[in-house]
């Protein structure tokens, strides 16, 4: 069962990620990215991170990507034009990408051989309670700093997006 779930959702994630890269229309790319995020959320569930799985869907798929789609629709962004890339880049790009992935995978499999296994339900530390406890004890300062960061981001977004007052 664990293998089945892993392969199914790993396959969906990779297929959607490829689709993000190769789709010409930004909306298609954005929806593929939602697919990647949803399948990663399922893998989080398998890894015992139930709170993060839900947060992933709520924050990424439900807010960030909706914002992307909103902007794409607002700007009425059409399909990308082809061309403009050199012939060598088009020829060499995909093989180099595969080579990069293969070497990364090889390095991980070599450097991380007996790293333990994942079974569903083997780790139950990812509940909302545990995360909240860790967040407000050990990681209180980073948490507060993040809230300041968000405030700065809100101000920045408002200043950038507001109409000129003249």
């Amino acid at each position, binding site marked *: 069962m664990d293998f089945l779930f892993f392969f199914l959702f790993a396959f969906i994630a990779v297929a959607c990620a490829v689709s993000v890269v190769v789709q010409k229309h930004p909306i298609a790319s954005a*929806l593929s990215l939602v697919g990647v995020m949803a399948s990663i959320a399922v893998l989080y569930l398998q890894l015992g991170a*139930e709170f993060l799985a839900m947060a992933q*869907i*709520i924050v990424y*798929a*439900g*807010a960030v990507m*909706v914002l992307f789609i*909103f902007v794409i*629709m607002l700007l009425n962004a059409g399909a990308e034009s082809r061309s403009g890339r050199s012939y060598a880049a088009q020829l060499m790009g995909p093989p180099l990408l595969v080579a990069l992935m293969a070497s990364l995978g090889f390095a991980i499999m070599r450097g991380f051989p007996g790293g333990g296994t994942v079974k569903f339900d083997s780790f139950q530390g990812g509940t909302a309670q545990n995360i909240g406890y860790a967040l407000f004890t050990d990681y209180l300062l980073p948490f507060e700093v993040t809230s300041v960061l968000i405030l700065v981001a809100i101000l920045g977004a408002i200043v950038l997006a507001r109409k000129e007052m003249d």
Partner: protein
Amino acid sequence: MEFIIITLIKLAVIAFVLLTALAYIQWVERKVIAHVQVRMGPSRVGPHGLLQPLADVVKLITKEGVMPPHANKFFYLAAPILAVFMALISISVIPFGTEFTVLGHRVMMQLTDLNVGVLFILAVSSMGVYGIALAGWASNNKYSLLGGLRSSAQMISYELPMSLALAAPLLIAGTLSLRGIVDSQAGYNLGFIPKWAIFTGPFPQIFSFIIFMIAAFAETNRIPFDLPEAENELVAGFHVEYSSMSFAAFFMAEYSNMVTVCSVATLLFLGGWHPLWPESMGSNFAAPLILAGAGAICLYHGLNPARPFDRFTLPAFAVIFFGLAGLMAFPPLVPVLTPLFWFLAKLSFLLFVFIWIRATLPRFRYDQLMSFAWKFLFPAALLNLLVTGFLVALVS
């Protein structure tokens, strides 16, 4: 194996009941709005128009599905499926009664009890916007594009106050499991005031209940927040190009979302299936008495008919109501059916409020909608959460 069989049976029952209920909520809505506006409402198909939903389904299935030219085919077809899928899936975590034992198997009145149930519902409902936004974009129509744009902006804006309003009762309950939240609201203060979240706790959650309901209207695109499908400015908004079953899918998604948000409000704020007054004061008799009363009214009007065919239809309804009342009063079934009755009663009351408001209030203007969300609802929800958190910390 036993688990799988029980789950499949529950799945079939819930799916059947839900889909039928969705069709009949629409009948109720048309009838209620008609009576508010002093009209008859659907009355031709079947007695009191009761077969109207069936006729609508047959009509929608047999209609031709039209694809507008230059529409994005894939997304045009995927959008209604996405919308209805996301709307129906959140029912799976909603509990609607206690557990009971049948033939030696313990059965929970819920498909699955997640320990992040509330977050699951938030997550799924936040995904629901994709169906609408995509439908608006893929139809290649400027009205539907405007509808899709409006819905994505509106949903993001109203999700914040909704989540903040949900967080306040969670602070009191101390769990994210929907069943656990309902269990934490059992019991009575002073012997008769129920310990529901809106009545009790360190800080009664009446404000967050109101904020949640307002945000729920916006999340389900209902009047007064139905800007994405405003008939008289955007024709029909995001689903203007849809016909046949894909149009029906959007309708189903809207009504299913209504059922979901009303269930969540019932579970989090109104104590789920706990009765309004204690069992010692006879709350178990409420269900049979109300149903028998409804049966008596039907019987009276059947014996003094206003229209000729009422002589036959209303006594038939009376028999159904009396039968239900007898079922509710049957002692072995009382512990199973009474919680279910209370849950459904609260749920239908909230659904009625949705319909009532639709018949009462005009639509907001778009800038009013946005400034209401950001300048009033969001600060109010934040303040409510702060006060609740402070008082919960003070008490514990």
